[in-house]
């Protein structure tokens, strides 16, 4: 492997020709050929009805210079991780600008939640980020418990932490597989899904649902652990490290994988903070920010773990960060099972609760970063305002920042390394 300087852009023959031509024209005393910003091309070029550009940025994206072209990726592109369209401005094979177009999956979940009772809100948030369903329920549960002034019993908190960490393991495991898949390797995703299906079966044994678990309640969880869950947990715990390692052996030192990820999409810590990137993507850029340590919720104060960071900030570091966090989560699961107390799993909370007027903020560390809920109560049976901050929605802003100067084929590889889930992006 030869190291690539992250600042080096791929030389663009058309750009070089243009510069040469401009140099000759300037030497001959002629006016420059191309005006700044290029010519406005319009929306027709990407197959949507024509209309005037609404903002300065939109006009920039849709203005084409010599040799440039607009290409749609999506909304049914197989590797956009859901339904999303990216307008890519290319010059030959090289990306000049990227404009994500969202909203294909927008369901208005915030508005739906404002018209639902507090208990039913916990069912509406499930299909948001469908790979971290347990985290989606955790943040509103924390916020509503603060609003209502009720506390979940300790066993419930331990079960919560257990299922949440299990969810993190399968989400990160899938990210490993999907990243390899977007780069062209088909096998790792199969191993990821073996691991994922074991966890999903386990969680469906405890919650009764396979994907949208609907497991958390205000003041506790729906069910206590049962025999099937515990036996599946034991089997999984015996196999998981071997499964992960199998995937690692296939991906981590793979030369093609490294060529496509090392030094690709390098995001500095300062840029990541400014862009609001959080979670593993931020920690891969060297910023030790983990909500489980920064504002410990649930039982994380009682568990021993360190905030893992990587130095690189490139796609490869984000991948290594996921692997390290899988192992950390398994370590946390061991601790949780060792310390789990006996007792009830649900506090005495009525089915329809009417919290006193107030405001509460609940934030959790989801596999994609800081997932938070801001709930306002006006004393009624449903939240007056229910706001969710989805980490992959915010992290997506890094793509237009990172891609200019890179190849089209790397757009999806870099995007996959951020692990966005469109169900969460579009809410």
């Amino acid at each position, binding site marked *: 492997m030869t190291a690539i300087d992250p600042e080096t852009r791929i030389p663009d023959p058309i750009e070089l020709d243009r510069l040469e031509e401009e140099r000759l024209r300037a030497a001959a005393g002629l006016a420059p050929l191309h005006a700044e910003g290029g010519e406005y091309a319009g929306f027709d070029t990407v197959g949507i009805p024509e209309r005037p550009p609404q903002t300065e*940025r939109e006009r920039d994206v849709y203005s084409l210079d010599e040799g440039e072209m607009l290409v749609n990726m999506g909304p049914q592109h197989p590797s956009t991780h859901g339904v999303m369209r990216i307008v890519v401005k290319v010059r030959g094979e090289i990306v000049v600008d990227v404009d994500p177009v969202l*909203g294909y999956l927008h369901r208005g979940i915030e508005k739906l939640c404002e018209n639902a009772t507090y208990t039913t809100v916990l069912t509406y948030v499930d299909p948001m980020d469908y790979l971290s369903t347990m985290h989606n329920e955790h943040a509103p549960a924390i916020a509503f418990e*603060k609003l209502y002034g*009720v506390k979940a019993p300790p066993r419930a908190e331990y079960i919560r932490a257990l299922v949440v960490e299990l969810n993190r393991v399968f989400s990160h495991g899938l990210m490993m597989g999907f990243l390899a898949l977007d780069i062209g390797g088909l096998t790792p995703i199969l191993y990821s899904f073996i691991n994922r299906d074991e966890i999903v079966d386990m969680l469906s044994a405890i919650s009764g649902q396979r994907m949208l678990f609907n497991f958390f309640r205000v003041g506790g969880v729906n069910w206590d652990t049962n025999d099937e869950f515990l036996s599946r947990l034991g089997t999984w715990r015996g196999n998981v490290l071997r499964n992960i390692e199998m995937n690692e052996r296939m991906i981590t030192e793979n030369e093609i994988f490294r060529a496509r990820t090392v030094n690709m999409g390098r995001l500095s810590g300062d840029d990541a903070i400014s862009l609001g990137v959080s979670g593993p993507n931020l920690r891969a850029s060297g910023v030790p920010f983990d909500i489980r340590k920064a504002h410990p919720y649930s039982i994380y104060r009682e568990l021993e773990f360190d905030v893992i960071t990587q130095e690189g900030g490139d796609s490869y570091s984000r991948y290594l960060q996921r692997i390290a966090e899988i192992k950390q989560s398994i370590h946390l699961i061991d601790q949780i099972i060792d*310390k*789990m107390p006996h007792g009830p799993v649900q506090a005495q909370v009525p089915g329809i609760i009417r919290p006193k007027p107030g405001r509460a903020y609940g934030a959790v560390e989801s596999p994609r970063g800081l997932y938070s809920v801001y709930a306002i109560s006006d004393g009624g049976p449903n939240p007056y305002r229910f*706001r969710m901050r989805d980490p992959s929605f*915010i992290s997506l802003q890094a793509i237009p920042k990172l891609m200019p100067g890179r190849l089209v084929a790397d757009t999806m590889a870099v995007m996959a390394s951020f692990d966005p889930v469109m169900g969460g992006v579009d809410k």
Partner: protein
Amino acid sequence: MADVRRPWAAADPLGRRRPLSAPAAAGALIRHLTERLGSDIRDLWTDEDTVEVQIDGARNVDVLTRLRDEEEFAFWFLADAAAVDYGPGERFEVVYHLYSSRHPAWLRVRAHVDRQDAHLPTITTLWEGAMFHEREMYDMMGIVFDGNRDLRRIYMSPDYRSFPQRKDFVLPDDAADSPAAGVSPLERPETWDLGRFRDALTVSSAPTYPPTDLPVEDGETAADTSRPR
């Protein structure tokens, strides 16, 4: 399953309301806020892990810049920016949640905005990542952020005309009025020609369930209706 002997009754009291109290170590933050930003902030309020202040919307950039850059605050991470509508005749609020490694509490800054003239300076100059937050607030609530370079709809289609998360937004919405509606006739119920289907249904000779033409004797029905179907 470490301590099997631990009786569950020794667990925390269940279902009992906890008193709201200020976070134990947030005193320094409250002191800094009142000393250094006393003229800008009002209605300081605390929760178990949050400190909340209210400001004027027009002052948001000044206040947030000081909160981010001054060493006593060092709120370097914008956790969330969201809009709240308090209904017609009331106000909008743009709510910022900030994180600092120096203080153990979240800081919530509520910026008041006039509902009739919802304008606010942008904070994308402080955090680039506020761009999607502000685009979402514009899309859902119709709050305009002055100086934002890319303030356009993010979820709804570009020609959508109302703001669906406002409290006075009533369903059915005006999506049918939008020029984008009716991309395909299937999405426009008013164009559906249901007449022929309805005629076909009325003269249909397809068998029905439960069968209606069976002889019915006294005291019993043709189909067992006691079982839910």
